[in-house]
């Protein structure tokens, strides 16, 4: 491998990862401000640096400072090793799941081909879901090792909820995999570049609308946020991270936001054409009877921008859901997962298969 393309790809990945982490930090601010605006409030705006308030943006820094300087409490009877490793497991697997997300088409610079993706593997989708599943260990271990009844309850709830919804999330996207015929995320996005009747982009939402709702529901449950925040259950059991303080708690907190971003990116990739822009082909815009040629590098960058916009949109959308719905009760949660999402996902697979057979591919 040449030095130049490798360095370029590393730079691209670095920018992507920086973007993801800054977005995760920013989401703590977005969460406060968006909820405030939705509820006719103003929201956190008191943090000030040199008299500047910047709409409360400094609260991100204030939070980080607070987390870093707080006491890192370890309960006396806790399993020291597991207790300390649990948040790291949680955030580590949330972070490396991003490696398989294609954030742009292959970048062509001076004859080099630079894939805008950390890890171009042909089982990208499975990889992401398995990383999410292993991440659950962080949550379970946190609840288990704290030696606190409430943490333990939170951990129990987390494990049953996450395992149930993993099944729903996995079966909801099988219809897509059948249609796209691949598990490679970049291939999936490329397949979505086709058009029906020349104008309707063949995005996942068009070919599998039911799967989108199933996926989104199960995915929100995976992020452990309202309406599925029973593992955290701030108002009654205080959740698996009850005993955590300082930056260890901060890591769990950040994991939630990272998972939100991951879900947003997955929704964009699987159902909304990833880095595709409607009407944009490899050599520029094509509309019904007009064309606007663009250099290939501009097309790729437009794709990256489109992916970023879709991600930000879905982050906004997930936040809106989080601040709109009340929480499910535990039995309702389990019923929703096992008697609604899972059978519907199965029905979706059967119907997809039938339609594909009828249309004869």
């Amino acid at each position: 491998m040449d030095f130049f393309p490798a360095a370029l790809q590393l730079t691209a990945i670095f920018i992507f990862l920086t973007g993801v982490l800054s977005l995760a930090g920013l989401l703590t601010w977005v969460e406060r401000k968006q909820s405030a605006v939705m509820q006719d409030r103003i929201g956190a705006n008191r943090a000030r640096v040199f008299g500047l308030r910047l709409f409360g943006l400094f609260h991100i820094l204030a939070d980080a400072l607070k987390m870093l300087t707080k006491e890192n409490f370890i309960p006396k009877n806790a399993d020291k090793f597991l207790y300390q490793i649990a948040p790291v497991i949680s955030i580590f697997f949330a972070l490396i799941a991003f490696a398989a997300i294609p954030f742009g088409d292959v970048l062509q610079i001076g004859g080099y081909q630079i894939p805008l993706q950390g890890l171009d593997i042909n089982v990208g989708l499975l990889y992401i879901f398995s990383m999410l599943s292993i991440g659950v260990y962080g949550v379970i271990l946190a609840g288990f090792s704290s030696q606190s009844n409430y943490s333990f309850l939170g951990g129990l709830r987390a494990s049953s909820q996450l395992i149930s919804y993993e099944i729903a999330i996995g079966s909801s996207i099988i219809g897509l995999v059948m249609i796209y015929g691949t598990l490679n995320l970049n291939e999936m996005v490329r397949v979505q570049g086709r058009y029906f009747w020349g104008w309707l982009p063949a995005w996942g939402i068009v070919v599998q609308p039911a799967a989108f709702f199933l996926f989104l529901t199960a995915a929100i449950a995976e992020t452990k946020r309202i309406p599925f925040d029973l593992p955290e259950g701030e108002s009654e059991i205080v959740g698996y991270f009850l005993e955590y303080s300082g930056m260890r708690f901060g890591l769990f907190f950040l994991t939630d936001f990272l998972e939100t971003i991951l879900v947003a990116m997955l929704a964009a990739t699987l159902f909304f054409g990833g880095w595709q822009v409607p009407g944009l082909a490899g050599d520029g815009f094509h509309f019904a009877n007009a064309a606007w040629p663009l250099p290939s590098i501009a097309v790729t960058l437009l794709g990256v921008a489109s992916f970023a916009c879709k991600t930000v949109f879905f982050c906004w959308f997930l936040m809106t859901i989080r601040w709109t719905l009340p929480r499910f009760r535990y039995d309702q949660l389990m019923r929703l997962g096992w008697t609604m999402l899972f059978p519907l996902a199965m029905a979706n697979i059967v119907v997809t298969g039938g339609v594909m057979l009828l249309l004869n591919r």
Partner: protein
Amino acid sequence: MATIQVQRKQLNFWERIYLPEIFRGLAITSGHFFRNLLFHGLRAFGLKQFRGAVTIQYPEEQRPLPLRSRTRHRLTQREDGSPRCVACMMCETVCPALCIYIVAKEVPDPDIEKAPASFDIDLGKCVYCGFCVEACPEDAIRMDTQILDIASYSREGMMYSMDDLLHPEKHANRILVDPKRP
């Protein structure tokens, strides 16, 4: 015993499958979101008649209190600045929290006869019942300073002396009523 049968509303099919109701909820919340965002934007461009939030930013902005609300005490003054109080001990007697401490002294003026040598109120104990104001025959004590932010780091700090009570502006961040007003 009479019983009341509460008719619980049965959810219809569309409500039971969640999705339409979720979209209705999302429409409401995002409607607020975009409307408020627009209003915040218009306000930032100088159109002050739009308000995207109902927040009152407390220490800087304060909500006007009704005039009859009971707020921090003050002692009214005579023309010469001395307290109107004649140390009759009515307020001290009526106070249910026993938080008024008056020491009386003699005054040569035969129309007044007595006056407080010291007049302390422990606002840490006060329950803001207003009985002291009701009991006073001289209109010497009032609770109309509109000062609500009464706080201190110690119990001693909650003791307000006669001087503080005669001049409520001394310890106050704001004062809406002129203490010299009769």
